[in-house]
């Protein structure tokens, strides 16, 4: 009887362990299949020319596979959207964690969550049919589908990530610190800026990095709103074509296992490496500067 129970116990543990490995397995398989389908392009063009080439004309003859403008587009869209999303996200988090009354927080918090739940295609559609004509009118520009519009839409997609993770970080600051500061006569604002934010800075950085990582990889918004011109942007109102947009827009037309198809998978590798890097950095920060009680400050 006891033996049977113990062996069931062992089997169950092993069973759960093997399933818990599924995430790593999937991650690994994603990597393997991206490489299988993407690496053949480097027989046609060198890694250097692929990453730094200025011309992306995959369908002309001879074709050009330089993704430098696409990388720049992705980076500039992400940077601009972060400039909007980080202040808004962190400020909302501070508001929710420190200022809002319980009743208000109970209304605002679900709203932020619902904002996160909006399908990206709906946000892209909104950017296309509502924001683009609006921008075109007020700034008097040729097209409202441009870098700025895409960054704006992306910002509202990464705000929920930044906001909810920052809020968790702020909550995890020990109350003793806050009370100490208030007892010394600091105002609530001074306590927030000089005590609470510095104590939660690692959590907030993690939140910011994950938010940016979401912006880099977001596809539908940049596909529908960024304008799609594969050139290095000259101003924030230039149409651009970030990496994910290229993959999504061209995969359907790319001949199966042709150079173009391989090149799109190679873009996938670049994108994957980008986000992997972001996530590893976020993970490092979260682990190294983890706040354990008050002693480590």
């Amino acid at each position, binding site marked *: 009887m006891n033996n049977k129970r113990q062996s069931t116990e062992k089997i169950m543990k092993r069973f759960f362990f093997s399933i818990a490995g599924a995430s790593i397995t999937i991650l690994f398989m994603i990597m393997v299949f991206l490489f299988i389908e993407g690496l053949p392009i480097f027989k046609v063009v060198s890694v250097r020319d692929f990453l730094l080439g200025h011309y992306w004309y995959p369908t002309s003859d001879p074709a050009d596979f330089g993704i430098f403008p696409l990388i720049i587009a992705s980076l500039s869209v992400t940077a601009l959207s972060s400039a909007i999303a980080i202040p808004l996200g962190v400020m909302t988090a501070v508001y929710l964690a420190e200022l809002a009354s319980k009743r208000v927080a109970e209304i605002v918090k679900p709203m932020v969550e619902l904002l996160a739940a909006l399908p990206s295609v709906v946000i892209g559609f909104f950017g296309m049919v509502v924001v683009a004509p609006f921008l075109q009118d007020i700034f008097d520009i040729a097209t409202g589908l441009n870098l700025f519009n895409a960054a704006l839409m992306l910002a509202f997609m990464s705000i929920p990530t930044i906001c909810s993770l920052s809020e968790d970080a702020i909550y995890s600051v020990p109350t003793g610190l806050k009370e100490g500061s208030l007892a010394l006569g600091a105002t609530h604002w001074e306590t927030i800026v000089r005590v609470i934010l510095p104590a939660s800075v690692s959590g907030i950085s993690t939140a910011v990095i994950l938010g940016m990582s979401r912006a880099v990889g977001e596809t*539908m918004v940049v596909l529908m709103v960024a304008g799609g011109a594969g050139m290095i942007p000259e101003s924030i109102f230039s149409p651009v074509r970030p990496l994910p947009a290229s993959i999504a827009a061209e995969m359907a037309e790319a001949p199966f296992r042709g150079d173009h198809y391989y090149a799109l998978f190679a873009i996938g590798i670049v994108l994957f490496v980008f986000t992997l890097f972001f996530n590893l950095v976020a993970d490092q920060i979260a682990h190294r500067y983890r706040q354990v009680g008050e002693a480590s400050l």
Partner: protein
Amino acid sequence: MGKNDMDITKDQYVEEKPRVLKSAPKHRKISVIQQAFEARHRRRKLVEQLLFAFFRAAAVINGLALVIIVFFMLKNGISAISWEFLTEVPRDSMTRGGILPCIVGTILLGLGAIVIALPVGVASAIYLNEYAKPGPVLRAIRLGINNLAGVPSVVFGLFGLAFFVIWLKMGVSLAAGCLTLAALSLPVIIGSTEEALKSVPDTYREASLGLGATKWQTIYRVVLPASLPGILTGAILGLSRAAGETAPIMFTAAVFYTPDLPGSIFDEIMALPYHIYVLATAGTHIEETRHLQYGTALVLIALVLGMNMVAILWRSRLRRKLK
């Protein structure tokens, strides 16, 4: 604010003399200091209030963004919604008719993804929360989950295309789409299940173990039943996430138009998000079908936000109960 606030000159003192005399005529010296403090305090409070207003504004902007988007979809989409729109197939190269195949396709995709991801996700979470001991193995698994959560949706699409569609020869099909979306929603399910497991008090486990139950018996008979509502909430969130995704199904499951509802899991399907994308960007009738685009977007929003609302309300009720 700084030391300067403390330096009250004689003139200032004289200026404000009447009020001081009124309130505390006999303790002039104390009043000076008190006054200085009060002035400084007022200024600090003012700064505080001003900055807090900014914070409040930031929160309002976020709330407003949601309201504005939903408002525009409602305003422009509501006229397209009719019984026919919801129950008929598209006609006349998508310019008329309904979106029934898209609704069915999206629901099937979401359900299929959850049916696959839920058991795997729950089992992973059980291992992480109940069995695993802190160490490099746990760290590696967590790192894997976090990174999987961060993989861009379009890369999931590429993976689905290369692995399910081509390598496993499933073709562009419902099955390939479900599997791709399952991989994508796995981290969501694991995260919410872990939260649900953590909310079960340790005393439950201790009581069960103390009565002589094994760990597995404890998990199966005590921990899982107690955390079931939380797990189901996570499942709903995962379902809504899967239903709203576009990029992963572009290459794996969805097609522009298929006249029939799917008959088997190896059929191509239509899906709401992809339908919006195609109507809004491709084809020759973009302006003509604008109201259909709004209508489709509205249906998708209603579906996704409805599920989320249910999950959020349910969860907040659970949390209140646990307190």
